[in-house]
């Protein structure tokens, strides 16, 4: 038996629905994802659930950068997370999942792994 991992791309929204340097939350099959569009126009997706507070609010944090790494600061206790790999830059043992994003025909799509056989 070999497990086949298929990536399913879920259509989320139009890219112009995301405002530059701001976040938005999306609901994907029960999981909450926070989407961010940077100044340069790149779209990042990480988990919306803030592991430090347990509230699903990372999309409502302030977008910025630390040493050039694009970041979001949790609006609850202000820990800063890298949008590139989801690590918490203030508490290195904490991290959130990062989701693959692509933009096709002006639509933002997020990868959700689907393991079949």
């Amino acid at each position, binding site marked *: 038996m070999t497990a086949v991992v298929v990536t399913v791309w879920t259509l*989320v*929204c139009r890219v112009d*629905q*995301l*405002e*530059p*340097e*701001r976040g*938005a*939350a*999306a*609901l*994907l099959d*029960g999981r*909450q994802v926070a*989407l961010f569009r*940077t*100044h340069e126009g790149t779209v990042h997706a990480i988990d919306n*659930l803030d592991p430090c*507070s*347990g*509230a*699903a*609010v990372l999309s*409502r*944090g*302030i*977008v*910025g*950068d*630390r*040493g*050039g790494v*694009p*970041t979001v*600061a949790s*609006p*609850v206790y*202000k820990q*800063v997370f890298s949008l590139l790999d989801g690590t918490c830059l203030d508490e290195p*043992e904490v991290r959130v999942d990062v989701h693959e994003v692509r933009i096709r025909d002006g639509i933002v799509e997020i990868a959700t792994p689907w393991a079949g056989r």
Partner: protein
Amino acid sequence: MTRELVVVGHGMVGHRLVAALRDRDTDGTWHVTVLGEEDRPAYDRVALSSYVDGRTEDDLSLGTHDDPLVDVRRATSVVGIDREACEVRIATGETIGYDALVLATGSVPFVPPVPGRDLLGCFVYRTLDDLDAITAAAEAAMARPGPGRRSAVVVGGGLLGLEAARAMRLLGLSPHVVEIAPRLMPVQVDEGGGALLRSLVERQDIAVRCGVSVTGIADDRGRLVAQLSDGVELDADLVVFSAGIRAADGLARATGLAVGERGGVLVDDRCRTADEHVWAVGECAALEGRTYGLVAPGYAMAEVVADRLLGGDARMTPAELDMSTQLKLLGVDVASFGDAHATTEGALPVVINDPVAGTYAKLVVSDDAATLLGGVLVGDASRYAALRPLVGAALPADPVALIAPNGVELGADALPDSAQVCSCNAVTKGALRSAVAEGAHTVGALKACTRAGTSCGSCVPLLKSILVREGVELSTALCEHFAHSRAELFEIVAGAGITTFSELVARHGTGRGCDVCKPVVASILASLGGGHILAGEQAGLQDTNDRFLANMQRDGTYSVVPRVPGGEITPDGLIVIGEVARDFGLYTKITGGQRIDMFGARVEQLPAIWRRLVDAGFESGHAYGKALRTVKSCVGTTWCRFGQQDSVGLAVELELRYRGLRSPHKIKSGVSGCARECAEARSKDFGIIATETGWNLYVGGNGGFTPRHADLLVSDVDTETLVRLVDRFLMFYVRTADRLQRTAPWIEAMEGGLDHLRAVIVDDSLGICADLEAAMAAHVASYTDEWAGVLADDEKLLRFVSFVNAPGTPDPTISFVTERGQPVPAPRTPVLIGIPEVGS
């Protein structure tokens, strides 16, 4: 030629040894084989209990050695050592030769030899496998039908036992701690500290029995009964033994190596055994006859052996064996350092025990009361960082004053150069001072070049105070994006007429900003009349509270506060607030600022809630903003028999005048109608108290962390003069204060303090008063209600959605339960009650 190092044990210390060796052995002189019993990568055993909170094996992992010169063999038990042949034999019969052998076998849990200790349902608390088994048993007990609480007996009331008790509680069981000593944590705390610790622990629903031992465990129809030495029998679904550890020195004994009186492989200060090829580190090593159960000495041993294997001459120093401990357990601070039990001859204990405040502090001093020997702190360990480095040094003040509330606050000044400021990494004050002299001028730079403050972090405040003492001016730069202070940025923005963050950061900063500088710039733009705070790019600068014009609460919902000027509200107004709260299912509470807070609103509900409030004539209360909050008042001459002026009328006038004014921090005010001061005006940033002929104006008061009464600025002025002075005061504050600086520290930091402030805004010594008044007049004229502004703008309304792809769907993680007739956030499971942190 590559030599072969065999490390027996894959715990924290073994892992550190391999990492340290491979870091420094750039020529690859050693090939390392690690033999670990557990079938897992090395993990952070100090944080073991956080596994029950939901941290995973991956979270706890110390990382793998991805290195061709390191072979880690997991699930591999060593069964013998042949020192003649220089080889170890593993359970499969295979032998592995070595040039050097390091024993890092750690310890095994000590289980008292009582009958029944092997029964099903009895566990030890040492490894992730143990915790997996405990969790499974706890879940089975919780799922068992039948009435009654599910309980666990925890044998041992030391650090590990209390962690185990907390874990039992997280798993839903009622824990019962049994400790043979007369108090909890007998190694770290003394009798007085233990008594307080016990009451703090019992408050958290953990039962405690001290001075008794477990004499047997019996099976009683599927459950367990723990029999105690005082005849008591405790029912339990689980029994957890966490009564201490014993060095795992069996291999060493079997191969004829000497062990200490109380166990542990005897090693010298190089961590070498009598056999020149065999070393021992960590909990299994008995250094000069003594074993150490903390990770910091273990790490120091690992560094020494790594150095020695590469031909160095490192030795263990007494400082590295410092057993000082500071930790937070079950939310309770506990620290002990030096000779905590006053065992030195002639030692004198000085104790302050405050059972009401829940704090216990003891200092142990020499018989001439000149030298600090040690101490114990329970309930509040905030002085640990300053006291611990003083062990062995002359006392800088009376010992009572050092531990008394409002006593002497010790800074770096009190320490001699030889005192260790950072005990985790053995860095002295002298070493830090030389680092400063060599150019390390920030806390970050000091950390990088000395490693001080990089482990437990408790000495960071001392690092700051050393920097100040050495004459290094701490940078006033806002953050990495701006080299300016807030006041300087205000001047730049006002002077150059800059209207956007992008323009400001491009011309005067670097990067794209952060959660520190963006809200500051947003506030400055708003103070200068930049239009609606959610207009265009400004929306992305705002803190979440300003961005959604509501206060985010811990579950991600918001609270809503309409403005109630002066605390005066009509019955119809009250009814509207009541109806809105009822219709949207909101929790209501009266605030300290004389208004009504409605909690539990989801982000997508905010516009509908405010539509109702705005239609009824309410406007934003700016409870979410760094802005004027409220002007509290008493009823004054309107009703009160003692009132001397119309305090409500003035409060309403002032609140309406300054509403919406964005400032460095929140601003609060109050107006009292007579000297009885019912409005508590002197605890406000600006407070007004009526006199027979006019008003007294007080400034610089606040409640909060450091409560402070406001100071009298002017007395007996008429209303017009008063308003003019408040205009100047507030605008001067808005322009020149630092980020998040309330008025009290702003005035204190001013050269000349209150007198200087009075000169500037009363006597116009800088000639800026006309300008300040004009700026305030512009603010008053341009005020509009922020919520009305959102409701009239479809583009802004679009942002108030839960999900971009499901705008009306409520956040599924939000749920409520009813408490005292109102909705409150449902508790999250598991409830986090503080992960213990252990430092040394």
